[in-house]
């Protein structure tokens, strides 16, 4: 069975459906039995959801004409 570290490493891929069926089942089984990993999964999924809702343009005043100077 997968441990928490392995689940953490695969969560991002699992959210995008980029893991095998067998690995997805292993992750789901682990999440059923592990509340901290369930919380991590929810937090990561919500983060991705928030990113998907970012407006096309950031708020006015974002960035600087002299900011983030190139090395």
């Amino acid at each position: 069975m997968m441990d928490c570290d392995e689940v953490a490493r695969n969560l991002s891929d699992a959210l995008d459906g980029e893991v095998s069926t067998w690995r997805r089942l292993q992750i789901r089984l682990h999440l059923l039995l592990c509340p901290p990993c369930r919380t991590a999964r929810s937090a990561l999924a919500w983060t991705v959801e928030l990113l998907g809702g970012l407006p096309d343009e950031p708020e006015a005043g974002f960035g600087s004409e002299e900011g983030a100077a190139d090395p």
Partner: protein
Amino acid sequence: MAPAVELTEETIRSVEPVLMGFALRQVRRPDLARDLVQETYVAVLEAKSRFEGRSSLRTWMVGILSRKIVDHYRRTKRELLMDVPPEPDSPTKFAPAPPAAPDRRLDERQAMAVIERSLESLSELERMAVLLVDVEHMERAEACNAMGVKPTHLRVLLHRGRHKLRKALQDAEIGPPEGA
């Protein structure tokens, strides 16, 4: 036959906010963002016969802009992550988040503001990976092509970028809604 790309004023006006927003979030400088978007329009005019319509015009133009930005990084940065093999993730590097505190605030506007600010803390390529896949909803294969990276590298960039943003929300004590 490949569909024609009508680069009309209306097309430009409709896509410009998206391109400017993407460039600004990536390079953080309005003057540089404007230059890169202008370069993108030139490239679109030159490449319009190669637009095959498999993705939307928006996605196609964001892909071209991404390549312009990566070219800019290559010209101006001594070392770019893509030139350095990604290190394997250590088992404790992205430990699971602690259980949500009962008083964890839920405020989507604040969360969005944290996300927006925290994008700056990502590396250039982590930021681009997240912007392409999670904000622009680009397929991973297309994002790889836009960034000039292999799928395994994109995987690591997405993993790190998303987890850094997730941690930023955690540090701000902002969590997902109950039952999410």
